[in-house]
Structures are given as structure tokens and as C-alpha cells.
């Protein structure tokens, strides 16, 4: 009895080493991927000329889509390598590619120095980042799952599931810390490069750890037995028995999981920053606090899925998201809605300043500060330019709004984002174990990576892009403010279709044997 418990403890310790080694690398890859997104505005200014429409097009493409859209291709490329050569070396390769491209972004000279090569280089490096991420996750999840005992597969793979959220948290933390250390102006000038360059040290540590890891025991076994697939792509996507499972995984689980994840963590950020105009640092503090508090729930739901099954938890998370997104976003919007607040006249002010630029244009800057009874503040800065050359049409006035939340508003929004990320932990916590159990070892890396990255990279990753586009398109001359909630229809509809397919077609029971 005592021997058995000692061996269990040793087994558990060696398993934790495997999990930590895999998780650290995956976390760093997510960090690398997200710092680009978090600094896209600064990157656009540094690398893309604002007056060149082609370059502007590339800027937008690179900023919003490239990294996400190429992820499924990374899944195919590296999934194939992982199923032929092995899990360990493949995700070592993805780590190096991700780290190298992130480091390179931090070093590339701007448009002012190298012209069109700046945006071309950035776009190419962003593509490499997306490809690397496409190959990373499937490898890490498969590697951990293939080491885990059946009754704890959900729990152990949930550690891999925390890495995306923690990578995002780390990226926010490093950005905030750098910005605070060097100051806003220096950060916008050169300080933004620091989080990219720092990545090389994190990658070096992670590569060292991963080099010391052994190959997955299940993969090593089938390799020894000569049962490795010679063409995993063909086997995954042309054999009906596998293809139908790939389609089921995508439309019955990952598609909905992807939109719930990206709505809770990323569209929520876009919404409070762009639609509600909440101040830069407040937004990041809100997200950091919510993420930090909610992260343990990945493990809770992963572990729970070992007992009651993956499907019940994932479907419950999806259903809650579908039913509550509108009330949650309405409650968030209310916290920064000036129409719902009372102005304190003695604390509010309006002032104007006129300046003349080198071209002789006159710029009038009007600053209005409204303080509200609940302690929140709204600052509106309006810039109107009168051109020296009166024959040219005057440019449109630029208005920027910044809203500082009251203490109660800050905590209310933190709570509402926390709730949304709880849904993320429900749908995302058990998904790695679910996907691993759906496919056989010989083609697992390839088969699970593709639906995962279509669901997360495309359906999920494009959520802020599509939802924001819907919001912008809802602005009319009759309603210049637009409908702030219209963007929610995209994740709700996708999650609803996925929920119905998942409920009808997805198996409820856990597949304990993944040694197939």
C-alpha cells in the first residue's frame, strides 16, 4: 500500500515536470503572440506610412488578421511533422520560430529608416508567429495528454489551457511595467520594443527546459512498433472516419468555444476601450485582475470534466454565454454612459487653445472635462484644423474621448469581465482532453490542431474584428453613435449553432483509452 502511494507520488511529480515544461513554452508563445496585438496601434505608426493606402491596407491586414488566419496552416504543417517525427522536436521548433520572429519584430527599423521593407518584414514575421502558434498548441496538449492517466487527463491538460490566459496576462503586465518605467512618450518612441526583445530570454529558458524532455510515451511506442502514419494529412482529411470527427470537433465544440473565449477576453477589451472609451491603464488593470482571479477555474473545470464528462461543462459554458452576453454588456456600458450620470458643474471645465503649425494651418483644440457625481470623469478633446490654403476642404474634426471610471464602476466592470472569463474557463478548460480523446495517436497532432485553430484562430480570433465592424456599420446619420451591442450577435449566433450541434451529435462519455 505504502509502495503504491510512493510510486503514485513519484509519478505525479514527474508528470508535473512534464506539464510545467510544456506549459512554460506554450505560455511564452501566447505572450509573444499577444504583445503584437496589444501594441498594434504603436506598431502601425512605426512601420506603416499613414498616407499610403496600400501600406495602410497591409497594416490593417497584419494587425487584425494575418496572425490568426495562418494558424490553421501552421496546424497542418507542424501537425504533420509532429505525427511523423515526434511531439517533442516539433514544438521545440515552433518555440524557436515564435521566439525568433518576436525578437526580430523588436529590432526591425521603422518605415522612416527602411521604407516599404518595414511593413513587408512585419507582415512576414507576423505570418511566422501565426504558423508557429498553429503548431504549438496541438503539440503541447497532445504531449501532456499522452503522459496523463485517464482519470486525470482533464485536470492535467487544463494546465496547458491556462497558458493562453496567463500569456495574455504576462503581455499586459510587461507592457504596463515598461510603460510605467520609461514614460508614455518614450514608450511610444522606443520602449514598445522592450517587451519584444525580452521574449528572447524567456524563449532561451523554455528551449533549455524543453530540450531536457523525453518524447511522448504513446508516440514513442507506436514509433517503435512501426505504426506511425506516413501521411497524416491524407489520413486525417481524406479518410471519412477521421474527417467526420474533425468536422464534429469544429462545429460541435471548438467553433463555439473559440467565440466565447475571444468575446470574454478580447472583445470585452475592445468594447470597453473603443466603444466605452475607458482609459488605457484602467482597461489593462481590469483585465489583469479579472484574469488573475479566474485562472484557477481552468483547473477546476478541467478536473471536474474528469468526473462528469467534458461535454456537459463545455455546453453549459456556451449556453450561459449565449443567454447572458446582452445583459452583461448592457451593464458594462452603463458604467461609462454619460447620459446615465449627473455632472458636478463646479468640478467640470471647458477650455480652448489655438496653435499654428509649420504649414500655417490653425488648429483649435477644445478640451472638455466632465466630472460626475459617482466619481467618474470624461475628457473630450476636439481638434479642428483650418487650413492656410482656403481653397482645400477643411479636414474633419478629430474627437478623442477618455473615460476614467469611478471606483464602483471599475470593480463592477472587473466583475462583469470576470464572469465572462468564467465562461471561458468552462468551455476552454476541458477542450484539450476532449480533442485528444477524439483522435487516434498516429494522427492526433494533425487532426486535433486543425479544428482547434479554425475554431480559435478564425471563428474566435476574428471576433473583435467582425464585432467592431458590425458596430461601425451600425452608425448612420440618424444614429451616429451606432448600436453598441450589435457586435454581440456574431459570437451569440456562432455559439448557438455550435451548442445545438454539440448537444445533438457530441459524445457525452469520456474515452478513457487514448492508446489507439
Amino acid at each position, binding site marked *: 500500500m505504502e509502495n503504491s502511494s510512493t510510486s503514485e507520488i513519484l509519478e505525479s511529480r514527474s508528470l508535473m515536470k512534464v506539464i510545467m515544461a510544456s506549459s512554460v513554452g506554450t505560455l511564452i508563445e501566447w505572450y509573444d503572440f499577444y504583445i503584437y496585438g496589444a501594441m498594434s496601434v504603436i506598431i502601425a505608426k512605426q512601420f506603416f506610412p499613414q498616407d499610403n493606402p496600400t501600406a495602410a*491596407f497591409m497594416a490593417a491586414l497584419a494587425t487584425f488578421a494575418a496572425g490568426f488566419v495562418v494558424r490553421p496552416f501552421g496546424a497542418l504543417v507542424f501537425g504533420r511533422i509532429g505525427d511523423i517525427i515526434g511531439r517533442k522536436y516539433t514544438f521545440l521548433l515552433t518555440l524557436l520560430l515564435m521566439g525568433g520572429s518576436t525578437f526580430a519584430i523588436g529590432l526591425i527599423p521603422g518605415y522612416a529608416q527602411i521604407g516599404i521593407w518595414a511593413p513587408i518584414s512585419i507582415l512576414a514575421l507576423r505570418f511566422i508567429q501565426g504558423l508557429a502558434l498553429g503548431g504549438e498548441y496541438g503539440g503541447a496538449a497532445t504531449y501532456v495528454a499522452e503522459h496523463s492517466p485517464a482519470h486525470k487527463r482533464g485536470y492535467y491538460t487544463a494546465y496547458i489551457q491556462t497558458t493562453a490566459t496567463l500569456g495574455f496576462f504576462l503581455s499586459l503586465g510587461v507592457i504596463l511595467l515598461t510603460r510605467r518605467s520609461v514614460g508614455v512618450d518614450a514608450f511610444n518612441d522606443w520602449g514598445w520594443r522592450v517587451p519584444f526583445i525580452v521574449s528572447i530570454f524567456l524563449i532561451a529558458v523554455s528551449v533549455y527546459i524543453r530540450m531536457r524532455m523525453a518524447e511522448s510515451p504513446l508516440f514513442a511506442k507506436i514509433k517503435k512498433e512501426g505504426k506511425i502514419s506516413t501521411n497524416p494529412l491524407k489520413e486525417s482529411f481524406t479518410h471519412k472516419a477521421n474527417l467526420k470527427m474533425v468536422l464534429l470537433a469544429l462545429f460541435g465544440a471548438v467553433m463555439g468555444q473559440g467565440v466565447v473565449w475571444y468575446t470574454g477576453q478580447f472583445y470585452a477589451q475592445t468594447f470597453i476601450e473603443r466603444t466605452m472609451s475607458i482609459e488605457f491603464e484602467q482597461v489593462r488593470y481590469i483585465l489583469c485582475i479579472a484574469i488573475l482571479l479566474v485562472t484557477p477555474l481552468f483547473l477546476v473545470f478541467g478536473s471536474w470534466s474528469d468526473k462528469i464528462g467534458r461535454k456537459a461543462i463545455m455546453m453549459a459554458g456556451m449556453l450561459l454565454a449565449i443567454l447572458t452576453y446582452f445583459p452583461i454588456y448592457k451593464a458594462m456600458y452603463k458604467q461609462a454612459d454619460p447620459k446615465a450620470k449627473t455632472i458636478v458643474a463646479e468640478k467640470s471645465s471647458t477650455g480652448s487653445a489655438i496653435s499654428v503649425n509649420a504649414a500655417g494651418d490653425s488648429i483649435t483644440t477644445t478640451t472638455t472635462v466632465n466630472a460626475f457625481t459617482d466619481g467618474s470623469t470624461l475628457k473630450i478633446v476636439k481638434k479642428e484644423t483650418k487650413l492656410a490654403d482656403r481653397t482645400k476642404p477643411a479636414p474633419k474634426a478629430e474627437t478623442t474621448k477618455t473615460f476614467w471610471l469611478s471606483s464602483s464602476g471599475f470593480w463592477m466592470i472587473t466583475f462583469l469581465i470576470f464572469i465572462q472569463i468564467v465562461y471561458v474557463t468552462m468551455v476552454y478548460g476541458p477542450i484539450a482532453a476532449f480533442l485528444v480523446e477524439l483522435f487516434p495517436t498516429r494522427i492526433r497532432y494533425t487532426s486535433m490542431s486543425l479544428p482547434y485553430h*479554425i475554431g480559435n484562430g*478564425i471563428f474566435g480570433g476574428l471576433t473583435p474584428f467582425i464585432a467592431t465592424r458590425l458596430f461601425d456599420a451600425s452608425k448612420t446619420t440618424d444614429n451616429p453613435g451606432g448600436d453598441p451591442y450589435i457586435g454581440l450577435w456574431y459570437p451569440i449566433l456562432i455559439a448557438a449553432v455550435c451548442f445545438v450541434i454539440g448537444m*445533438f451529435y457530441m459524445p457525452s462519455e469520456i474515452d478513457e483509452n487514448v492508446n489507439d
Partner: protein
Amino acid sequence: MNSIKRLAGFIWIFLGVAAIYMLVHRAGLEIGEAVAGKRPLVDTKMFWYIIVPIFSPIMLGLCLFGWYAWKGEYDKIER
């Protein structure tokens, strides 16, 4: 239950086809408006140039899923 799964296959096929039609139709409409100066040209083109080529093949996948469902491939999941 299996007959519902099979019948629902038609819904997924219809949904896939309808989504592709809507995407292409909407893209044509909005890009046309943008060319006529009613919408921002670069933003509109960029959005649809990304969305249509990416989502159309995925929606074909939904049709294929519906086809498999209709043929009874999901009646019993072999694991």
C-alpha cells in the same frame, strides 16, 4: 434521436449554403457602395477580402458535416 440527427443534417447543409450566399452577396453590395463613395473603400475591401475567402470553405465544411449527418455517420460515434 438518430432520425432527428439525420433530418437536422439538412439544416446544416442549408445553413452552409445560405451563409456562403449571404457572404458573397453582402460583399458585392458593400464593395459596390464603397466604390461609389458611400463607404470607406480600403476598410470595406479589406474586411470582405478577408472574410469571404476564409469563411466560404469553412461553410462548405458545414455542408459536408450536414451531409454526413444525413447519411447517418453520427448515429453512433466509434471511439
